[in-house]
């Protein structure tokens, strides 16, 4: 039998743009990583275009106060989106983040205002509520075998109900300024703490997703859960952990929104999940799983809030705003998919 010369590696001239593997970027500098990730997401271009457009259209847009306002308004949705990026990369979905956030806020209120516990305990309690919800979601999905959509839809309803029940169908107010400062204080002058928390969350999530074993399994499960399981990875355990992590972010969002409003509003939250998921997908994460990035999510969330803020600054009528937002989402994701197709 003839043995051939082993095929020499053909230099990849036919591979103009390398698709960026998750976490495969360590040998390049941080600048390069950032650049390649930004390019990866044409969403970023959309963001820039939007900012330029609004800056030209209105002198009130590109002011320190308004930019800080935009960032502040991104904080809650952004934190939710960052958390749910994990879940979406596994190929799952989490509809419970909106009302779940509210339940966490209510629980924080119960701990701090109703039970008089110290701030720190209350905050941890609120976040733990989120983690518990995430854990239950993960358990229901893995051990009970429920589809993520249904498991988290049920949790969405349960959290919504419980938030009302526990709060006694009334907002719980926070008296202490220190609590409100969690969102509105300015450790960095001019930048509300809520924004700082968002960036911190994103940074932590980025590191976890690209540098740790949890991140690796998140991508692996989303890419092919069965293969991951057959490789000896305890996919159930990791899936539960991933939903729990998402729950922790939900808890953080709950604390931040409570601090921002100075109160836990038990009826808030419906619809936040769709906004957060939209931000994630606009940022280039695939609902089919296996692909996604935190930076993209952040950009996606910013696109949404820049757009909405800009339309408000321009005093576009509320009923037209949705129409415009819808069209911009279509265009943004379309240009992004164009780039992807050209690349493929």
């Amino acid at each position: 039998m003839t043995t051939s010369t082993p095929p020499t590696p053909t230099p990849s001239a036919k591979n103009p743009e390398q698709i960026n593997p998750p976490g495969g970027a360590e040998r390049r500098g941080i600048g390069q990583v950032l650049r390649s990730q930004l390019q990866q997401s044409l969403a970023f271009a959309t963001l820039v275009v939007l900012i330029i457009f609004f800056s030209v259209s209105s002198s009130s847009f590109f002011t320190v106060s308004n930019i800080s306002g935009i960032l502040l308004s991104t904080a809650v949705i952004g934190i939710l989106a960052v958390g749910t990026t994990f879940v979406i990369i596994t190929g799952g979905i989490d509809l419970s983040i909106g009302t779940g956030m509210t339940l966490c806020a209510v629980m924080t209120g119960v701990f701090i205002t109703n039970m008089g516990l110290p701030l720190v305990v209350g905050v941890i309690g609120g976040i733990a509520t989120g983690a518990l919800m995430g854990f239950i979601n993960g358990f229901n999905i893995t051990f009970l075998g429920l589809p993520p959509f249904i498991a988290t839809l049920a949790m969405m309803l349960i959290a919504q109900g419980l938030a009302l029940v526990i709060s006694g169908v009334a907002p719980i107010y926070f008296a202490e300024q220190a609590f409100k400062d969690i969102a509105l204080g300015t450790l960095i002058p001019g930048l509300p703490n809520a924004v700082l928390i968002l960036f911190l969350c994103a940074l932590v999530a980025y590191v976890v997703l690209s540098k740790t074993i949890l991140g690796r399994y998140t991508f692996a499960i989303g890419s092919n859960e069965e293969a991951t399981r057959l490789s000896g990875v305890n996919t159930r355990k990791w899936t539960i952990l991933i939903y729990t992590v998402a729950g922790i972010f939900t808890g953080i969002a709950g604390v931040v929104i409570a601090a921002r409003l100075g109160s836990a509003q038990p009826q808030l939250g419906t619809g936040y999940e769709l906004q957060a998921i939209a931000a994630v997908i606009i940022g280039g994460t695939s609902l089919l799983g296996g692909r996604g990035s935190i930076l993209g999510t952040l950009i996606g969330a910013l696109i949404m809030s820049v757009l909405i803020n800009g339309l408000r600054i321009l005093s576009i009528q509320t009923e037209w705003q949705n129409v415009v937002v819808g069209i911009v989402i279509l265009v943004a994701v379309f240009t992004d998919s164009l780039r992807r197709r050209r690349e493929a």
Partner: protein
Amino acid sequence: AQGGDAGSGGDAGGGEGIEIAMISKGFQHQFWQAVKTGAEQRAEELGVTITFEGPASETEVDAQLQMLQAAIDRSPDAIAYAALDPEACIPLIDAAGAADIPVVQFDAGCDSDVPVSIAKTDSLGAGALAADHMAELMGGEGEVAIVGHSQINSTGVERRDGFVDQMEAEYPDIEIVDIQYGDGDHLKSADIAKAMIAAHPDLKGIYGTNEGSAVGVVNALTELSLTGDDLTVIGFDSGKAQMDAITNGLMAGAITQNPIGIGAETVQAAFDAINGETPEEVIDTGYFFYDADNMTDEEIAAVLYE
């Protein structure tokens, strides 16, 4: 908290060029559209321009704050605000004060010292008035139920509580057997009313706390082929469907506030504040019970809207 000198700040004084930003609790419901209409009418009379916006649902405290923030950054000549939550708004309203933007309020207030006035109705009193008429029509006894539109926002709570408190205080023989909430969604409210009617065969009256709730109850009656003789329905707000129902006798009557008046008075107050005058601190625009008999009265007709 800066930016007060940008934009249209310079030439205030007459009506021309004055911009008033109104942040409402909502914009989709007929009530808020009527407020908007009143505001626009007065704005035209005064020659000022207004913007009017509000979140899609009255639970969206956060979204409303963002609108307020964006409005402050636009630095209008005055802001008119209807608070979804009295506390959450404090930092932003204070910021508006710091930026020397006069703030007036409508419908519900913010717990801040900055706003100079508020145009609103006494929802508790309006609820009580509904209870009085309901009791009278029911002959002072029997079972009654409430289809609420919100169990948490202030108008929903006060219109309910005013009704409930008045019933408990004044009409011991009337029992409130059920209170459920349909988010002001016509369809949901209709289904709730039907379930109530099924569950409580002796039910004599239903009170719907806003237009969607009330019309939902009326729809339930239609669908069950019931009439106003079988069940006393008292509604809230106006709108064509509700007014038709009253004309047809399906609905006994309804409470209306004066949303058009609220809008007009709010713009007037803002205009006054811009011009350095001090508007009245609380402007009560009143509420009325209307039924088939007095609907066409001039005073009543003026506050109704289709």
